[in-house]
């Protein structure tokens, strides 16, 4: 800071604290609601301080079906979400690494054609092509499966671009030296390129994990069997049953469980994530 005026510093902190309160309030309320019992959650005004039912609600939400008849426990939905997020994140990173490697380090026919084809996918988010993509997945018999949930979302122009950018900054001498020592292309890829781009891979993993975990529309279309529901879409089911019998303590517990894994991923890898976000998408 240029000038040292306690008053302006104080005001800055004041506004920041207000901002934090504004941003964190909904999450606080979710936590509070998740820690009370059903009776307290129907009395107006609703509590602003946590109650003592947190672990009871947690156990109930994780193990029992709370979304009406035949629904599966939230624990199982979280498992589905986890599988989906992991497959999407790992899959996107792997195929993007491979294609970026091919595009940067090989001269082959149709190289630029492939590059532009990948580029186009950047422009077609799943939301704009839902119906035809749904038909393709249905024709391939991939409805209600992890394949259907993940593979259509795996192609990624952003990740390919990022890895291309990183590979271009790696000095040519690396490849010359590796070749001198008799390393083939795949050896070079595993022993030199992957270790050199490790931090970027980790940063991208955070972003893609959140992307995969937070998918909503796609699982909504692809899954009709309750065993395949993900937790984020399960929330909607709970809200619908809430029209008849509002069990807000359980709904908010589910919401909390749906938020925690991505929040943990973001906070534990905050530095990498911030770096990855502000550097890759620009």
């Amino acid at each position, binding site marked *: 800071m240029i000038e040292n005026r306690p008053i302006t510093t104080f005001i800055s902190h004041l*506004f920041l604290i207000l901002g934090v309160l504004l941003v964190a309030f909904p*999450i606080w309320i979710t936590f509070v609601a998740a820690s009370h019992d059903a009776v307290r959650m129907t009395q107006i005004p609703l509590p602003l301080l946590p109650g003592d039912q947190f672990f009871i609600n947690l156990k109930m939400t994780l193990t029992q079906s709370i979304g009406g008849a035949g629904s599966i426990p939230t624990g199982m939905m979280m498992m589905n979400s986890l599988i989906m997020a992991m497959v999407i994140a790992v899959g996107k990173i792997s195929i993007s690494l491979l*294609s970026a490697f091919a595009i940067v380090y090989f001269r082959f026919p149709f190289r630029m054609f*492939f590059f532009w*084809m990948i580029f186009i996918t950047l422009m*077609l988010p799943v939301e704009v092509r*839902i119906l*035809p993509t749904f038909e393709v997945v249905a024709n391939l018999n991939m409805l209600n499966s992890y394949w259907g949930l993940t593979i259509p979302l795996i192609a990624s122009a952003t990740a390919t671009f990022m890895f291309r950018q990183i590979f271009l900054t790696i000095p040519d001498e690396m490849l010359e030296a590796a070749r001198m020592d008799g390393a083939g292309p795949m050896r070079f890829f595993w022993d030199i390129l992957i270790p050199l781009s490790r931090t970027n891979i980790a940063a991208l993993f955070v972003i893609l994990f959140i992307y995969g975990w937070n998918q909503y529309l796609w699982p909504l279309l692809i899954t009709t069997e309750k065993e395949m529901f993900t937790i984020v879409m399960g929330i909607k089911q709970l809200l619908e049953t809430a029209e008849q019998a509002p069990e807000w303590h359980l709904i908010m517990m589910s919401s909390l469980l749906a938020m925690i894994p991505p929040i943990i991923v973001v906070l534990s890898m905050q530095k990498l994530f911030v770096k990855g976000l502000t550097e890759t998408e620009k």
Partner: protein
Amino acid sequence: MLKKVHFSPSALPFLLVAPQIIITIVFFILPASQAFYQSFLLEDAWGISSEFVWFENFIYIFSDENYLNTFIRTIFFSFTVAFLAMSIALFLASMVDRIIKGVTVYQTLLIWPYAVAPAVAGALWVFMFDPTLGIFTYVLNFFGYEWNHKLNGGEAMTLVVLASTWKQIAYNFLFFVAAIHSIPKSLIEASSIDGAGPVKRFWTIIFPLITPTAFFLLVVNIVYAFFETFGVIHTMTSGGPYKATEILVYKVFYDGFVGLDLGSSAAQSVILMAIVIVLTVIQFRYIERKVEY
């Protein structure tokens, strides 16, 4: 683009790009072209017969008052969300820039909502504004205002704007912090020696220098509000009451999967794709232009 030193030609590069290309063709190019083709067809709801009708679907859509209203509503919604999320984020980012202690703490506390799914954000806000139980409803009632977003379209719109904005602040905040941080300190110091106070410095030095970031974020936020807010709207209002919160993506989904009007839904998809392509091109053209310090 290509390394000066590279591997000798072989079949290997084809194998390496194969997974990406196959997925792109099967799940992107194919469906997109199918949507394009389907947008020229008139199909019955069971898909038994279809007829090639040229631009009839498009003409129908653009003469449909519902669609035009949805279009205007989407634009209003997107710009409101983008404006609110960006101004709050910029304000907080400029405050963070002014302090020395506790920057990481504030950053940590402010980036949470980025990790929250739009659908979950919707659930949180719908709970806080629940017409009978909600905490904010209680406060509003206390001041004599009857809140019921299930009946009042304007209130429903306010609610989806609030939830969508809340979720997007974190993202914008991170970018603005990075942008402000990258401004050379010498510029700020020079202007403060010339007697410019914090507010003046912000508007004459910082703000002009971060306009590229702001522009980039504007596009990203509009894309976000156009497409990713589907989850927010679907969980909160389902486009209601009386379509007061129905935006374009929601309408594609609704007409295609609930109304089973495939031709119209496909034509709407094509229009959306055109919008995304325009936005992406704008985004890329402006990223090239970097401000010289």
